[in-house]
């Protein structure tokens, strides 16, 4: 199964095995990872699973839907060009090794 790596704001990293049929947010919360809040449970409403995607990976993700794009304006930490919501990133085998950086805060 594909594994992904979250890098916390303090530089520590966590490698997370995914089920092959879940979003980066679901994988993170299933492992009890700090730094991903996901208050709305993955319904693209709350913008509390904000992540920054490493440049090398950004173009390999599926394109953003309009609602995700709009929600990113409401993130607690600064929105950057590589900002995404982890609940909208389905982890396929092609994303094995994906690196996601966590912002300092989600609310």
């Amino acid at each position, binding site marked *: 199964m594909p594994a992904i790596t979250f890098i916390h704001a303090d530089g520590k990293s966590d490698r997370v095995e995914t089920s092959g049929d879940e979003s980066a947010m679901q994988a993170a919360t299933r492992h009890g990872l700090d730094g991903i809040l*996901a208050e709305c449970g993955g319904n693209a409403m709350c913008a509390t699973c904000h992540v920054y995607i490493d440049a090398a990976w950004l173009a390999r993700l599926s394109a953003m839907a309009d609602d995700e794009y709009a929600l990113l304006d409401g993130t607690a930490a600064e929105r950057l060009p590589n900002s995404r919501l982890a609940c909208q990133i389905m982890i396929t085998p092609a994303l094995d090794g994906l690196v996601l950086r966590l912002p300092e805060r989600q609310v």
Partner: protein
Amino acid sequence: MSAPGSAVSGVPHLDVDPFDMNFFADPYPTHELLREAGPVVYLDKWNVYGVARYAEVHAVLNDPATFCSSRGVGLSDFKKETPWRPPSLILEADPPAHTRTRAVLSKVLSPTVMKQVRDRFAAAAEERVDALIERRSFDAIADLAEAYPLSIFPDALGLKSEGREHLIPYASVVFNAFGPPNELRREAIARSTPHQAYVAEQCQRENLAPGGFGACIHAQVDEGAITATEAPLLVRSLLSAGLDTTVNGIGAAVYCLARFPEQWQRLRGDLTLARSAFEEAVRFESPVQTFFRTTTREVELSGATIGEGEKVLMFLAAANRDPRRWDKPDSYDVTRRSSGHVGFGSGIHMCVGQLVARLEGEVMLTALARRIAKIEITGEPKRRFNNTLRGLDSLPVTITPA
């Protein structure tokens, strides 16, 4: 063909009334009975299917094509009965119609908008706590859980100051009306005329102050997102579901923190827990207890076959305490990762105002925990009975300032 929920389909029949006063007084033993009887049950009293386990409640919420909302999210089937009021364009709608109206309210109540109102909501919470500290002894429902949202939400919406006393009674009618034709529902609707008249009037564009949520909804008409006849009905959704729900959410949080002093102390020790303390109260008490869906086709759910046109009652509160999903489900724990609870629903109809609720809850609990050392319950809490909402009518408390 077999009768709905007959022995052939293996669905257990239960003789419980989840809209009965005795049930409301203590729903937990019945919730357990419903969960343990099977993944899908049949309630003979109202001829509906029921789901009370987390997995099935979540599955029903997330399959809106099969379990639709346009035939009403209460017991009444809009295909067979005339709704008591014009149906909601968002709550009682299915895609694609729902997608368009939902996008409008999502935009009006977005995380970006919450950033803009945050300071105002937080300042009002501080003011409310100032007033409560003066009093020491008060009713945590009327003077806190109601007074706080009433001090901000109608203004945020842009409502006129006259007539606001209709807001909570109107919401109470709306949530009672989702229930069966019992006394609560009959009485609520019988008394609803003046409240409905008030609400219909306030939803009009000229009655909503510029810059408020209501005016923002009407501005979407100019963008071509909705029509001028749709806008007032979408404002109505905020009047129906935006106030009483947060009253019960904040009331639930204060009731939890007053009952579990060790949790109160944990919150005081780390104010960043305020948001999760509120969220956990929504899981633990589930201010919105139930909603219905109607099947659009025959469907198999966890081994049970449900025919077309059947009402399915989702016990959100029971799902939020399902031991299959939650560790120590009956404990209120401010540090719990409660993400995934269905207190705000799930899927396309998940509470569109959830960010408003969380913001109100967070800033109020932060203000309380910063200033107050102890909350003691000093009298018997009284319950307020409603077919859908769970909350208190009064909660006498005495506080000790920090």
